[in-house]
């Protein structure tokens, strides 16, 4: 056989193969050939210390009975965790009865604990355990010394003391069932205070510039600052008893796990929970360590935990972050370039495509993530046959993918439409087919523009991938969010610095790629 010039199917297929392999999550690539031992069950937790400790308690107590439970920690917001639970992406998570009433059921007729329990079972097929024993509600707090001085023990006593100064958290001031309703109920007749950052209110209380602040009733600061929690004598604040919510099916799938979850019923009171929170927030212990201590001291259960290490954390976050960026970027390249080509070739479709992508761009990250969870979980179960896809990195990857489409589609479009007419005429005059013209002439000429679009998308993705931490998918957002929550600057920097370095590296890598791929003739 005589030698011929390579056709263009060869490079296309090689490119596609590389892209497809590059798309796989690194855990799949690293575990290739090994037997998969992914945990069967998943516990979720919201992004605050107490909830994470409770999640770790479930994980560790299960571990003591050799049940593998993965803990997807620090998921931002009730909506996402709950979405995970109803789509079966997780099996159990700690919640508060008040939150269930006001944010999930949203039904004024459901009041008592038993009514809530029945409603959850009927509407969502979820079981609500008995209260764990502590209540995390809003409360009014004063420094013990100051309260003593003024002789205040109950909220109702605040009404006659109009000279007291208040410092209230943003959320409490803005909530429907917050300051406004409470001050009306108790007849506290002062101008509506401005909302502050909650960390600031403690500082003001400590320094004496504020007399009364709003607090959470299990806040570790109650212990450390010696705060008196004023009695809610008119029963204004709804019950925020902590419970576990789990899927009904779990009772059949693993009755033993259910028994272990229920063993926490009535086990932790407010004082203990405040103490556990303080162990984390004041003594800087990890939630897992605190949970381990509790199991050992209070329940005589001893479990081993992995000793946390900063280096391993950074490494893990880097791998997770790169995973998010890489997968979303490759999906973006595979989809966005053809879209850009279509947009450039069909003016009408082009406008529609660019418009739609522009609109998608404006959906807020959290909303997009929530919207993606259910379809992803459904897809995983019905088409791939795996459970938990909705709580995996996939929705984040899809969200990142959507956000990164615009620069690549737009640059492909511009790159193609900016090709000088004489070159297109030349290509036509030679008798090239449309495909050959696209592949041999138009795409290579648009390449610099396309590559710079991909570079922009990659850099955007490095930043946006911090979003992953919102749903516990890890990445550099994890230490950032935890750091903000614990006001721990070191932890914030642990995420912020690598993220910045990564953005610079991505920029550098793409400049090298441009240097290699763009033919010399196209460089000015």
């Amino acid at each position, binding site marked *: 056989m005589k030698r011929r010039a390579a056709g263009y199917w060869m490079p296309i297929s090689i490119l596609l193969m590389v892209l497809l392999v590059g798309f796989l999550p690194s855990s799949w690539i690293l575990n290739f050939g090994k037997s998969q031992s992914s945990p069967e069950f998943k516990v979720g937790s919201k992004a605050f210390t107490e909830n994470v400790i409770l999640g770790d308690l479930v994980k560790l107590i299960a571990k003591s009975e050799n049940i593998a439970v993965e803990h997807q920690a620090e998921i931002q917001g009730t909506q996402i965790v709950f979405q995970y639970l109803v789509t079966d992406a997780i099996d159990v998570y700690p919640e508060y009865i008040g939150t269930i009433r006001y944010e999930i059921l949203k039904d004024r007729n459901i009041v008592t604990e038993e009514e809530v329990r029945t409603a959850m079972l009927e509407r969502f097929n979820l079981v609500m355990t008995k209260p764990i024993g502590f209540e995390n509600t809003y409360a009014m707090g004063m420094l013990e010394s100051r309260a003593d001085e003024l002789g205040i023990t109950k909220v109702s006593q605040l009404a006659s003391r109009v000279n007291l100064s208040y410092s209230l958290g943003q959320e409490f001031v803005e909530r429907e069932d917050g300051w406004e309703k409470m001050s009306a109920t108790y007849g506290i007749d002062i101008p509506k205070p401005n909302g502050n950052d909650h960390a600031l209110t403690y500082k003001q209380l400590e320094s004496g510039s504020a007399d009364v602040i709003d607090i959470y009733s299990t806040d570790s600061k109650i212990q450390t600052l010696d705060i008196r929690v004023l009695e809610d004598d008119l029963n204004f604040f709804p019950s925020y008893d902590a419970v576990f919510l789990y899927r009904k099916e779990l009772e059949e799938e693993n009755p033993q796990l259910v028994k272990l979850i229920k063993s926490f019923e009535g086990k932790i009171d407010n004082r203990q929970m405040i103490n556990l929170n303080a162990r984390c927030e004041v003594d800087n212990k990890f939630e897992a360590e605190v949970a381990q201590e509790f199991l050992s001291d209070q329940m005589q259960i001893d479990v081993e935990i992995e000793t946390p290490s900063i280096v391993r954390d950074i490494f893990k976050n880097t791998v997770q972050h790169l995973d998010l960026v890489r997968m979303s970027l490759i999906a973006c390249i595979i989809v966005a370039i053809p879209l850009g080509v279509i947009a450039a070739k069909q003016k009408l479709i082009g406008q529609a495509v660019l418009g739609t992508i522009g609109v998608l761009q404006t959906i807020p990250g959290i909303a997009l993530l929530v919207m993606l969870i259910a379809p992803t979980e459904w897809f995983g179960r019905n088409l791939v046959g795996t459970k938990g896809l909705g709580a995996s990195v996939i929705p984040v990857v899809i969200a990142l993918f959507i956000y990164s489409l615009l620069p690549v589609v737009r640059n492909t479009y511009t790159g193609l439409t900016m090709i000088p007419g004489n070159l297109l*005429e030349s290509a036509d*005059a030679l008798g090239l087919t449309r495909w050959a013209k696209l592949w*041999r002439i138009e795409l290579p000429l648009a390449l610099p523009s396309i590559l710079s679009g991909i570079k922009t998308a990659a850099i955007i993705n490095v930043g946006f991938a911090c979003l992953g931490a919102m749903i516990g998918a890890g990445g550099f957002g994890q230490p950032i969010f935890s750091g903000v929550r614990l006001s721990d600057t070191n932890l914030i920097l642990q995420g912020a610095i690598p993220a910045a370095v990564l953005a610079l590296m991505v920029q550098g890598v793409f400049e090298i790629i441009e240097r290699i791929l763009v033919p010399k*003739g196209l460089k000015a």
Partner: protein
Amino acid sequence: MLNLENISKRFGDTVALHATSLTFKSGSTTALLGPSGCGKSTLLRIIMGLLPSDTGAVYLDNEKLTPENVLKMRHRMGYMIQDGGLFPHLTIRQNVCLMASHLNWELEKTSDRFSELAKLTHLPQASFDRFPSELSGGQRQRVSLMRALFLDPTIVLLDEPMGALDPLIRSELQHELQLIFSSLGKTVIVVTHDIAEAGFLASEIVLLKAGAIAQIGTLRDLVKHPSEPFVEDFINAQRSPLESLEITNPIASAGQGRAEQ
């Protein structure tokens, strides 16, 4: 043989080409001459099927050009567009041999054809693997010509193959073109603004004026028996260098001397 039957083209209100019929005999070289905007490039584009004509049809060896056969027909016609149209992302060799890889030629045949053409156009070997931006204007023109000739077309259309060349190179290339045309025996249509060049390269001249044929004939016919005052003006507008010396104002002479370039 190339036949144009009653072709015409309008762009909105401007008539780029009035209904025109023309025959180009096999092996002949015809020069297409006329002022800027008179429809020369439009005519070539219609022949190549790059632009649909409003009326009439183009026949190549009595076969009508249709949207279905246009790609095949283009392989039988070499077209060098007005400014060369070399692809900046391909090397000289890749530019010239583009169609070979598209049509899946054997590598040996491709490289033989390339060497043959490089010899014909005297393209220096050092430039083969450079990019168009690294070549001189004259070298680029040669490369465009090589590319137009690559598939050994029966018809060769050249749109101002020597625009923007200095007089020395221009004259050198004119001689080479003349040799190439006569040795290859192809049907050639060459667009130019230069009367002398037209006379030198072509046996027949077609002079266009605002989208219509003003006169067809040899250079001698046009000079001796102009069909209308326009033809006479067009020819006289190109003065010889000696004539320019007689004009006293140097600025005017510079301006007028380049008026038709």
